């Protein structure tokens, strides 16, 4: 990013904005996150299944791609294991993840897929090894549990992104957006600047926000409420996405955010992809996602952007979770970018 250009464009855009769209003063500075070392050629990435199961064959496209980036891959014992819908028993998944967290030779841990199951093992995981051997933990969807838990308990940055099951089998036939989404994982892992230009949406609420980026799967965030993996969002930029939920349930989850104090102190709100489950006949909710979100945030003034490329979809770019970002939402452009120190 050309910083000079960025600042000038910000000032130009800012001139047209009401004064209250300026970033609110931070009450207290958030403690800086522990940032794992960025990866260089020859570094090792572990692959594990803390949630749903996956076969060894299914992770091959990811393994080959990651190796083509110059990294080594260590395949965890849970890959290919199956216990019901889980990638091994709770004990097996706990042990595999724990070994990888404690392994000094690993610089990153890529979760093979989401599904469901991280919450079964999260309280058995010991994160204390991370202070000696910080490493990037990578995933989304059910892995929101891990990202939240790590942010809340050890304030280590992580990566919210696609996982092994989203690597295309045949790169030559993959859509550009799919390839870009996968390559953004490498970009994040190697310390490249992260910038996400987003198409303007007329429903957006303009403004500029600066804060640590947190969030993830909305339903998962709700089911973490009150637990020791629940995140504090004050002074932060929150992003949410979801799939397969009814509109009424999405509305109820936004009320959970409100009632657990996760909206009042936000700097900015990023709405990713929502694959909405159609209403049952006779139970039409009668409100869109826009209605739900805008109604919930009307008491606040932080910027809101819709259709951000994160979610259960092809355009799901890697986000540096728990790290400072700037969100700029104007009538002409929308940009999220990580803030380099």
């Amino acid at each position: 990013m050309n910083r000079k250009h960025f600042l000038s464009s910000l000032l130009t855009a800012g001139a047209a904005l009401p004064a209250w769209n300026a970033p609110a003063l931070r009450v207290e500075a958030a403690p800086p996150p522990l940032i794992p070392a960025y990866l260089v050629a020859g570094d090792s990435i572990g692959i594990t299944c803390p949630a749903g199961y996956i076969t060894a064959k299914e992770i091959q496209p990811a393994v080959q791609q990651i190796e083509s980036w110059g990294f080594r891959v260590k395949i965890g014992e849970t890959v290919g294991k199956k216990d019901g819908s889980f990638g091994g028993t709770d004990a097996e998944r706990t042990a595999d993840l724990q070994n990888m967290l404690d392994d000094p030779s690993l610089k990153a841990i890529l979760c093979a897929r989401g599904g469901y199951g991280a919450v079964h093992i999260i309280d058995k995981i010991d994160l204390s090894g991370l202070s000696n051997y910080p490493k990037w933990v990578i995933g989304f969807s059910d892995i929101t549990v891990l990202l939240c838990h790590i942010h809340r308990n050890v304030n280590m940055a992580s990566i919210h992104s696609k996982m092994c099951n989203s690597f295309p089998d045949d790169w030559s036939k993959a859509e550009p957006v799919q390839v870009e989404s996968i390559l953004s994982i490498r970009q994040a892992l190697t310390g490249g600047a992260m910038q996400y230009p987003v198409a303007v949406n007329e429903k957006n609420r303009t403004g500029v926000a600066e804060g640590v980026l947190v969030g993830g799967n909305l339903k998962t965030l709700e089911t973490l409420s009150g637990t020791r993996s629940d995140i504090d969002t004050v002074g932060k930029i929150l992003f949410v996405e979801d799939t397969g939920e009814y509109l009424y349930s999405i509305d109820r989850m936004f009320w959970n955010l409100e009632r657990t104090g996760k909206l009042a102190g936000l700097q900015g709100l990023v709405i990713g992809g929502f694959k909405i489950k159609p209403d049952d006949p006779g139970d039409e909710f009668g409100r869109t996602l826009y209605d739900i979100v805008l109604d919930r945030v009307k008491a606040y003034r932080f910027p809101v952007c819709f259709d951000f490329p994160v979610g259960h979809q092809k355009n799901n770019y890697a986000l540096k979770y728990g790290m400072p970002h700037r969100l700029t939402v104007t009538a002409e452009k929308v940009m999220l970018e990580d803030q380099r120190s």
Partner: protein
Amino acid sequence: MITIPAYLQPGDTIAMICPSGYMEPARAQTCIETLRSWGYVVHVGKTMDSHSENYFSGTDEQRLADLQQALDDPAVKAILCGRGGYGLSRIIDAIDFSAFARNPKWVIGFSDVTVLHAHIHANYKVATLHAPMAGAFNDGGAEGEFVASLRQAMEGKKIKYTCNVHPMNRRGEGVGSLVGGNLSLLAHLCGTSSEIKTKGKILFLEDVGEYLYNVDRMLYQLKRNGRLDHLAGLIVGGFTDMKDTTRPFGHSVYDIIYGIVSEYDYPVCFDFPVSHSRENLALKVGVGYKLKVGKGKVTLEE
């Protein structure tokens, strides 16, 4: 100490309101007529006949006003919700309970009304009634044992239920306040000002139409919030119309619950008649009960 509202006597007034989803007025007629035949005066709230054309029985403001009026009116001795659905989470923080706290009355319903049960229990320590709503009076329900249990409970008859044993039951005896309701709502309320504490209490749970993995996830949420570890007992009601994912979860709903509470030693009874199907006995939330899970029978006694 829990405050128990005055039990109802013929001539008393019952307000019927719809604080959540829309209800077709015709579906409440049998209920209204039955309550009148029992000798009660029935105030039919605006949200019971709201001409709403969307999901809710009225706007948030209309639903709030109807509920608020019923809570504040000293002549109203009980508030029976027409149906559940979804909607109480949107208005619960706007309700003024000060008149209700001074002059408690029975709040009756289940499903989404779990929000009211939990919020009132957590903040005002007033007993409420988890019981069938208007729809349960239809199709012969008004003459059945479950509507009868609602009448008996609100008229102050001491409750003693006996139900069949289930092979997965864990035997034992527990004494404590009875709390609970719909699992989805109890999970949704975690971390909010409506969340209930369960230590030393008997917890009852039911749900409808959820994915098995999601039931598991919600139970883990309760567990991780410390809501399952110090119970006096657990009553597992109906978990009806459960759904499964393309990759089967591999455990039945009772297996899931059995596994999650296996590390504790309080009594557990399965298949208790509290549910979204017809089997739905009235339970006084916040009131002390004794749960006996025996070899030959299960009893829940006030």
